[in-house]
């Protein structure tokens, strides 16, 4: 596997910059969570995707606003890459009423309906059949939408993954299964859980396209997803992309695993050398497509956006005990 992204001259400068910006938005957003977490105001568990940004960004760069994304417990990056607004995300992490789940759900319950982010939950694999259902609806309605389902290597062990993939293949649904294989489910390495470590091969059983790619290379993710999204939109059925990557932080929370002796330090450092952002940025600079000034502009504007979201979150109200009883069923006030 190559250690860094190779700049693809077939990609427009605009797309390359958009990829970098998207990855930086995710990285900076999550790094801010890491910085603020010790304040203990964010009383919700966070599953960070630092190190895995190229997958969300590379896939979502191929999507339109109307397309749908189903995601999982590690979903910040997916939502951000799909264009989710920072404010309701941050407010949710702070447990505020203005959060995307009214402060009742937390960071595993991300939702942004206008951007097609259809909600995430703690249940590993839970989003997979729902994504297939949304794609089935799209195909019935002929609305031209594509649905992306992000899930982990662990989720590929749940039976519902195979049930869902078969269903999607049978009905030739406009859906792309994106497996973010970060080689671990909580603290268990993939080799301890899989008889073969070839998730992408599953697609072949259902007569569908499967590819195993470098998930730290935004450009190869971009091209692989482009092909899959085009197939889906053209009515040629689902694809399965297995993108290899590594999570830098612990399964949950802002610390790194080696600090707790859960994974080898060397392994992390090897993967940090293959940072999806640093190598890509360097190449953009080397080829002259970007300069330091432009990058500074991008990061400054992201920082402003994050500052604003944090201020918004901190100023917002907590939900009241009465809010507990809201939105369990239909209420005439339309919910909060």
């Amino acid at each position, binding site marked *: 596997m190559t250690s860094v992204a190779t700049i693809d001259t077939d990609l427009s400068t605009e797309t390359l910059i958009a990829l970098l910006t998207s990855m930086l938005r995710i990285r900076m957003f999550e790094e801010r969570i890491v910085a603020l977490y010790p304040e203990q105001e964010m009383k919700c568990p966070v599953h960070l995707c630092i190190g895995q940004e190229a997958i969300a960004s590379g896939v979502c760069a191929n999507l339109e606003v109307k397309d749908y994304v189903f995601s999982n417990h590690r979903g910040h990056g997916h939502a951000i890459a799909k264009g989710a607004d920072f404010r309701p995300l941050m407010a949710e992490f702070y447990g505020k009423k203005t959060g995307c789940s009214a402060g009742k759900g937390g960071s*595993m319950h991300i939702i942004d309906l206008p951007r097609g982010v259809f909600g995430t939950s*703690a249940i*590993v694999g839970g989003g997979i059949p729902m994504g297939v259902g949304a794609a089935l609806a799209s195909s019935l309605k002929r609305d031209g939408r594509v649905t992306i389902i992000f899930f982990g290597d662990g989720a590929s*062990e749940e039976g519902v993954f195979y049930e869902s993939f078969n269903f999607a293949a049978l009905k030739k649904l406009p859906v792309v299964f994106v497996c973010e294989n970060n080689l671990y489910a909580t603290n268990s390495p993939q080799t301890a859980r899989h008889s073969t470590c070839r998730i992408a091969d599953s697609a072949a059983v259902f007569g569908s396209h499967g590819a195993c790619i470098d998930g730290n290379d935004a450009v190869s993710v971009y091209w692989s997803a482009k092909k899959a999204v085009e197939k889906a939109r053209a009515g040629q059925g689902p694809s399965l992309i297995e993108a290899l990557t590594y999570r830098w932080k612990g399964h949950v929370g802002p610390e790194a695993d080696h600090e707790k002796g859960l994974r080898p330090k060397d392994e992390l450092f090897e993967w940090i050398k293959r940072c999806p952002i640093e190598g890509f940025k360097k190449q953009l600079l080397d080829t002259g497509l970007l300069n330091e000034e432009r990058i500074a502009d991008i990061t400054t504007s992201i920082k402003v956006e994050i500052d604003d979201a944090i201020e918004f979150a901190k100023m917002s109200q907590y*939900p009241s005990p009465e809010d507990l*009883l809201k939105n369990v069923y239909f209420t005439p006030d339309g919910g909060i």
Partner: protein
Amino acid sequence: MTTKQMGVFQRPANMVGAINATLAQEMDRDKDVVILGEDVGRDGGVFRVTEGLQKRFGPGRVMDTPLAELGIVGASVGMAIYGLRPVAEIQFMGFIYAAIEQIFSHASRMRSRSRGRFTCPLVIRTPYGIGIKAPELHSESAEALFCHMPGIKVVVPSSPYNAKGLLASAIRDDDPVIFLEPSRLYRAIKSDVPDEEYLLPLGKGEVYQEGKDLTIVAWGAMLHKAAEAADGFDAEIIDLQTLKPFDEELILSSVKKTGRLVVAHEATTLCGLGAEIAAFVSEAAFGYMKAPVMRVAGYEAVTPMARLEDDFNPGIERIKRAYELVMEY
């Protein structure tokens, strides 16, 4: 006389330690006892309950599984009808929903389906309940679902001491048992736990505190809140321990004495186990009752994040109010 009173060697332990020791004890005693689940082996489990057991008993008896709850439980059912005694761990009660098909459609019915030739000596352990500031699906109190299904036993310890005696009984029981471990109590309390083995029978509750005016029935973490709220009342508090089948006799003998009953639980009021206990008492002891049976229980809402936890879960004030209402009736 319980082992506790016999004065065998005891040491203070928390519930994690007591359960861990019991698992080791049962594995030592019976080589057909095996443990399986996500991260239970190499890692020792989310709450460290199985820590060290794989080292001690080997990966053949303490098995890490793929991340697949239906597969874990289904394989456990198969092992159980083969004759092993699997103890499966589900990481949080919210994840057991993925495995319900094997529990409800198969484990619960093996005995009746096979005219008693197959039993299903299976234990599914899972942390449950609210109170550790975990989000939705990590704080479930869905015990009543399992109580509703014929063929399933449901057990909830409230202390390290009874966790040990009840778990040992559950493992030796020939029917499938859902063993619900109140996650809030895992490390919150210690009690003296004898090193010796002892069994606390399934289907039996225990009088936690004797009293004359009012019977309180609770279990798990709620027992401790219900007891705290009972300060100032002459209350008899029953720790139910086994929710299914529950100890009808103990409840009856107590309400016949007090004439008043409050059931406290975390789970939703509607169709919660409190409803069943109230119905039972009104059928069996109506003439003895001085007041209607009251339930103080959870709202019909999704378990919320940390900040609303104490509003969701019946707190001391709400519980006390229920006692007062019954006393003032």
